[in-house]
């Protein structure tokens, strides 16, 4: 220890003053260090710095709370001051702390009160320590005389908060006091040389500018910071600059080493960096803001020369850490030290990697920056979020390598991006001691800072192939969701089918075609039923007038053609014995395409049927076929791209969990590949392929003819089981004798092997028929042909193969089922068939809702809502979900159409609520706050033609801007107020009367905005 100090003394040279200090300090009584640093810091002290490894963190217990500290110019001694303490400590570079001198010991204690600040002099006064006291005294101690109290400067009437030695001369001292005054003292004179009043509250901090020592900055209790020049003398002058910096008191101010910026910290918990340079820049906004957790007690730049960008802060309360911030990264501290257990009252940078701090926990601590905590590492660096289109994004920050035990020789800091050039320059400046700036040569770390910290991070956007938005958007835009005038349900179905076909949604297209067929049958059958019932009604009593009335109305509305509609009563009565049989049904089926659609009308409650009869079987069948698809690459690709919520993709996910990430990359090229291979598959084909339907029909009819009996039986039991939801007709009439195993019905019937198998098969049949149709009989020379040949066909041919393999079995089974005798026929019987509209739709909606295709469900509910009955709650869910989905994709027009068409109350009510638009004045941009415009507007309807300026003062309606006292801009063409509708260009926000604009754009053939803003509106 002694060896080291002498070594240092030698190296420092033998100035008389320092020698005196040395002599004195060396003789001082030293207390044993009670350092409590991490093990390893107590390595044997050697003068060889480079061989020293490990943290230099060390602490020393002072036994009393410490208020502030200051380092000697020689950087090895520190004076600590508190309410009951004023001591000089000696800190070796290795982290050994010893007490050198108690300044209180030799002085009369009654003259000394609590110190609020302490400063060690510099230059000529480096043997001087000054303390600021709460009673307004400034005590000056002379170390040359053994630390005796030299003099007491007493001019402040209230507590002195801060003192600072002028770095230029060292004899100049400034003090800031609670009374709002700052006094400049020359230690060679008895009185203060200058008294400055900042016209503000108490002065909390004063600091000289190190590069231009005639300037100093002061921080005030009322939140302002000021820049002064003390050289000017006299009392008349005032501050050079004043900024309202903080909300609440400012506690700390510190000049950046470049002498241009200051950092201020205040009670509002922020540290702000201000341009305090020359020039009367009226920029009163902070250059940077750092948000900390608690009131900032001190904020100090890290001494790294001119390029420093880091600020160390400590909090007044609540936070016991010293935090070092990079102004590039204002929300997360770069380093933190948590050695203290109570609030830190003062700290300083010993050098750029060492912080000395003192605290109310009575400790003096040396912190080693290289062993600091990295708060950023305690945070989660990754985040995941879902996008509306079902893709999700993951962000992962790149962590710096763990701060392992690095060799001290190899000092590096990972994320410092300070340019080496400027750093060298600045270090040269420091070494040579040339403090004054040369403008334009050096660049401050703040000036050169171009932006906020941009963390290095990996962003992964994973598009899950479960869903792609393109088909949804296309179908949302092109599907028919409500029947407009003259459009039949059949046309709507065909159109929807064509649209989905164009987008490659083949299953959906098929569904629509089937619906087209079935709704035709349904309507036919209902008409026939009407007719038949009419005949019966002549005989029977007309009990159920209401039902029949509705039915008749429906029939009337439905037919619209020359088909005979019956007017009879007693529609679906329990008494009605079905009379029609299969042959009767057949001819009905064929002319389906011509079947007129139902106009939107009332829902016939009596038509309710057991829901979900067929649903699970259909879905399970498609699942199985999709499973087959996986084998076929081509078809799989198609489905990846074009059928959004395809189950096969789900399966694929479960098979190969890594697939999504890979396919994320693939998706775009894949799609383009497919489109390029079959360019016809683009979305241009809105052409109607209804021509294909006649070919479908016989097949379906044929297939259905042999399935019918069995399905009749299938439904029979169901009918009984769900008789609650039915009219009595169904229970009583036809289902009594159904006793076969098919009566088993489960919502998730896939658990029933038998049922599943058979239904799979019959679905295969359907597919086969369709496939035949599509593959061989496709008469349309449309693009669909190409598509069929390329991919779709493959899929279906594959299915065909599977299906044919099973074909015989199925037929056998079907025969068995066919043995079941049926009694019902006609419409009543129709109801039990799987392709009965109600049943079929139930199946469909179950299937599609299981797959999450809310679009399909909602559209079905909208189109068929008045033909069949959907569960009110489910329908509400679908519509609501669909509308939300449309909104998410910004498809507002389709969404509005859906809202308009739906019968679901709470969705409809969206369209019925008021819409408020808040205006702001086009002139001054202030919000137009005046209320009651709606009430006053009708009161003055004749003012349409009156110029705005005439009425401006008197009329205060909704269009009157109070802040600029004029009417808001009206029409851009005629410059008059617009009442009623005001159309505007969304590009430039100018607009006006409809007529004026029409005249302008259409009449005068103008293209640009009438306001003259130069915007090309058209």
């Amino acid at each position, binding site marked *: 220890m002694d060896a080291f100090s002498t070594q240092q003394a030698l190296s420092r040279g033998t100035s008389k003053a320092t020698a005196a200090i040395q002599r004195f300090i060396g003789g001082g009584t030293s207390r044993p260090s009670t350092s409590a640093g991490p093990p390893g810091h107590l390595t044997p002290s050697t003068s060889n710095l480079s061989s020293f490894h490990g943290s230099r963190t060390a602490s020393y217990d002072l036994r009393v*709370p410490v208020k502030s500290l200051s380092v000697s110019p020689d950087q090895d001694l520190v004076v600590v001051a508190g*309410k009951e303490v004023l001591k000089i400590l000696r800190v070796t570079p290795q982290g050994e702390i010893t007490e050198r001198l108690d300044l209180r010991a030799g002085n009369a204690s009654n003259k000394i*009160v*609590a110190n*609020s600040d302490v400063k060690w002099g510099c230059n000529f006064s480096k043997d001087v320590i000054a303390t600021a006291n*709460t*009673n*307004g005294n400034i005590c000056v101690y002379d170390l040359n005389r053994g630390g005796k109290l030299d003099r007491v400067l007493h001019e402040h*009437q*209230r*507590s002195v*908060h801060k003192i600072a030695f002028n770095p230029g001369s060292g004899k100049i001292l400034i003090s800031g006091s*609670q*009374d709002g005054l700052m006094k400049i003292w020359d230690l060679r004179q008895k009185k203060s040389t200058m008294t400055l009043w900042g*016209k*503000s*509250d*108490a002065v*909390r901090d004063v600091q000289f500018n190190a590069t231009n020592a005639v300037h100093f900055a002061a921080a005030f*209790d*009322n*939140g302002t910071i000021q820049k002064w020049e003390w050289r000017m003398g006299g009392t008349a002058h005032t501050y050079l600059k004043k*900024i*309202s*910096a*903080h*909300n*609440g*008191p400012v*506690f700390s101010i510190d000049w950046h080493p470049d002498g241009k910026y200051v950092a201020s910290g205040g*009670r*509002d918990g*922020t540290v702000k960096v201000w341009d305090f340079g020359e020039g009367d820049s009226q920029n*009163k*906004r902070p250059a940077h803001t750092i948000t900390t957790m608690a*009131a900032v007690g001190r904020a100090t730049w890290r001494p790294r020369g001119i390029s420093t960008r880091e600020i160390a802060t400590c909090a*007044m*309360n*609540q936070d016991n850490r010293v935090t070092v911030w990079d102004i590039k990264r204002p929300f997360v501290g770069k380093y933190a030290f948590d050695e203290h257990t109570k609030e830190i009252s003062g700290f300083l940078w010993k050098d750029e990697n060492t912080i000395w701090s003192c605290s109310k926990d009575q400790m003096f601590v040396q912190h080693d920056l290289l062993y600091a905590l990295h708060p950023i590492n305690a945070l989660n660096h990754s985040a995941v979020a879902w996008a509306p289109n079902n893709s999700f994004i993951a962000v992962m920050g790149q962590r710096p390598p763990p701060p392992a035990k690095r060799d001290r020789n190899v000092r590096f800091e990972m994320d410092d991006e300070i340019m080496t050039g400027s750093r060298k320059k600045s270090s040269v400046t420091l070494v040579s001691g040339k403090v004054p700036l040369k403008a334009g040569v050096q660049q401050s770390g703040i000036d050169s800072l171009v932006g906020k910290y941009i963390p290095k991070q990996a962003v992964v956007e994973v598009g899950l192939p479960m869903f792609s938005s393109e088909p949804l958007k296309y179908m949302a835009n092109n599907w028919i969701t409500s029947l407009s005038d003259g459009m039949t349900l059949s046309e709507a179905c065909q159109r929807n089918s064509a649209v989905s076909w164009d987008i490659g949604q083949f299953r959906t297209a098929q569904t629509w075609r089937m619906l087209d067929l079935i709704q035709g049958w349904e309507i036919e059958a209902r008409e026939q039923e009407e007719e038949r019932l009419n005949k019966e009604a002549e005989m029977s009593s007309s009990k159920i007038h209401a039902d029949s009335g509705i039915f008749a109305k429906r029939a009337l509305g439905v037919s619209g053609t020359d088909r005979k509609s019956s007017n009879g009563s007693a529609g679906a009565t329990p008494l009605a014995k079905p009379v029609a049989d299969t042959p009767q049904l057949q001819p009905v089926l064929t002319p389906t395409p011509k079947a007129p659609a139902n106009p939107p009308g009332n829902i016939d409650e009596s038509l309710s049927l057991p829901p979900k009869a067929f649903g699970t079987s259909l879905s399970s069948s498609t699942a199985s076929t999709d499973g087959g698809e996986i084998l076929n690459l081509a078809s799989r690709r198609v489905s990846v791209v074009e059928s959004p919520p395809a189950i096969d993709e789900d399966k694929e996910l479960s098979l190969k969990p890594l697939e999504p990430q890979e396919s994320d990359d693939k998706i775009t090229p894949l799609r383009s590949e497919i489109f390029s291979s079959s360019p016809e598959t683009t979305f241009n084909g809105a052409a109607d392929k209804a021509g294909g339907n006649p070919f479908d029909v016989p097949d379906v009819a044929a297939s259905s003819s042999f399935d019918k009996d069995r399905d009749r039986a299938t439904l029979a039991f169901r009918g009984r089981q769900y008789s609650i939801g039915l009219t009595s007709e169904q229970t009583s009439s036809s289902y009594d004798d159904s006793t076969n195993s098919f009566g088993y019905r489960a919502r998730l019937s896939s658990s029933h092997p038998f049922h599943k198998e058979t239904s799979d098969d019959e679905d295969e049949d359907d597919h086969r028929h369709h496939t035949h149709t599509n593959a061989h009989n496709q008469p349309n020379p449309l693009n669909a042909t190409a598509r069929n040949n390329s991919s779709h066909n493959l899929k279906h041919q594959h299915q065909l193969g599977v299906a044919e393999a099973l074909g015989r079995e199925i037929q056998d089974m079907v025969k068995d089922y066919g043995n079941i005798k049926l009694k019902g026929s006609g419409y009543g019987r129709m109801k039990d068939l799987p392709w009965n509209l109600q049943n079929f739709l139930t199946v469909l909606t179950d299937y599609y809702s299981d797959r999450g295709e809310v679009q399909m469900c909602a559209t079905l509910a909208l189109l068929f809502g008045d033909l069949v009955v959907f569960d009110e709650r489910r329908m509400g869910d679908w519509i609501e979900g669909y509308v939300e989905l449309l909104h998410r994709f910004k498809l507002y027009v389709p969404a509005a159409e859906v809202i308009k068409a739906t019968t679901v109350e709470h969705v409809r009510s969206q369209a019925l609520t008021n819409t408020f638009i808040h205006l702001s004045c086009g002139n001054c941009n*202030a919000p137009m706050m005046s209320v009651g415009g709606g009430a006053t507007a009708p009161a003055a309807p004749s003012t349409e033609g009156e110029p705005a300026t005439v009425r401006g003062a008197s009329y205060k309606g909704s269009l009157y801007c*109070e*802040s600029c006292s004029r009417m808001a801009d009206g029409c851009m063409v005629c410059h008059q107020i617009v009442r009623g509708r005001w159309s505007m260009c969304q590009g430039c926000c100018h607009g006006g009367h409809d007529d004026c604009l029409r005249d302008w754009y259409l009449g005068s053939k103008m293209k640009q905005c009438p306001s003259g803003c130069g915007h090309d509106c058209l």
Partner: protein
Amino acid sequence: MMTGGSRPQKLNYSLERWMQDPSPPLQSPTPSRVSMQNGPISRVRGSPRPRLLLQGQRRSGKSSISSVVFHKMPPTETLFLESTTRIQKEPVNSFMDFQVWDFPGQIDYNDGTFDLEAIFSDTGALIYVIDAQDEYLEALTRLHQTIITIQRFNPAINIEVFIHKVDGLSDDFKLDTQRDIVQRTTDELADLGYDGVHINYHLTSIYDHSIFEAFSKVIQKLLPELGTLENLLNGLVSNCRIEKAFLFDVLSKIYVATDSSPVDVQSYEICSDYIDVVLDMTEIYGYDRGEAEVTTVEENKSSTGSTDDWSLPDQSSVMKLQNGMVLFLREINKFLALICIMRKESFEKRGLIDYNVQVFQQALERVFELHR
């Protein structure tokens, strides 16, 4: 702790002659506490009590401020305050007797019917309230006019601008608003040749303690012995290892003085709430000369033995907080209470603290006597 009574109104009548309506001065809704007729702390000898003028635009929140600060009205209730239609003079009988004049926003006192000199000459501080959530340009124009008028009659007046209702603004916007107002005012006054006018700006809101803090600062500036009080507190704080000490006016929860260490919001809030608790307890359990004790540690201090009649038996209360801090309340006189925040370790020397506080109390007494 306090006894109610009616305030003699003769002082107010001297002001009546300038006012347009001759109605007697309105008493504050809560019974105003009596102070000694020649109370030790009446500021201005032989003249009416110092006046605080509350001015500002219509609906800027003047009446809300005075209701919340002086009448303990919950901030949410101020929504239902009627618009003030005439100058409302509220005597505040507290540690420092002063009078708050609530000026209706629509009154234009520049129209010659007011005796401006009489209004302004005795006024200690003008508090100009600006609604920060509204357009303030017009308010600023009025402010500038008022300042110029005041400069003619009473240049010594403290001009305090409350940038009010800032609770609705974001932190950045608060400061932007303040900067804008300061800049405009400075420029305008500089243009008019009133360079040296010193204006204090405060960001306030009735929904937090900022309005109390701002009022504290306003009141403190009217207090000539503030420096002395502060130094006394500094001595007390440093000798008893107290973290923070406030001298509170218990009625308005304004702090009259504090030691020179920075006031942090949490300390102030907890002290202010503590006073509420103590007052409530006193009202319920206190007897005539209230000696109610609250919270964990109970204490009954006997009279300090002071012969002066306003130094009554003091009461004290101690509350130990969970975070190792101790709140210590000591009655100084009828209107003042000393509240100290200290660490538990420091509170162990209870006798020392009591003695020091007693010394402080006596010193305070002497200070006020001196100024009497």
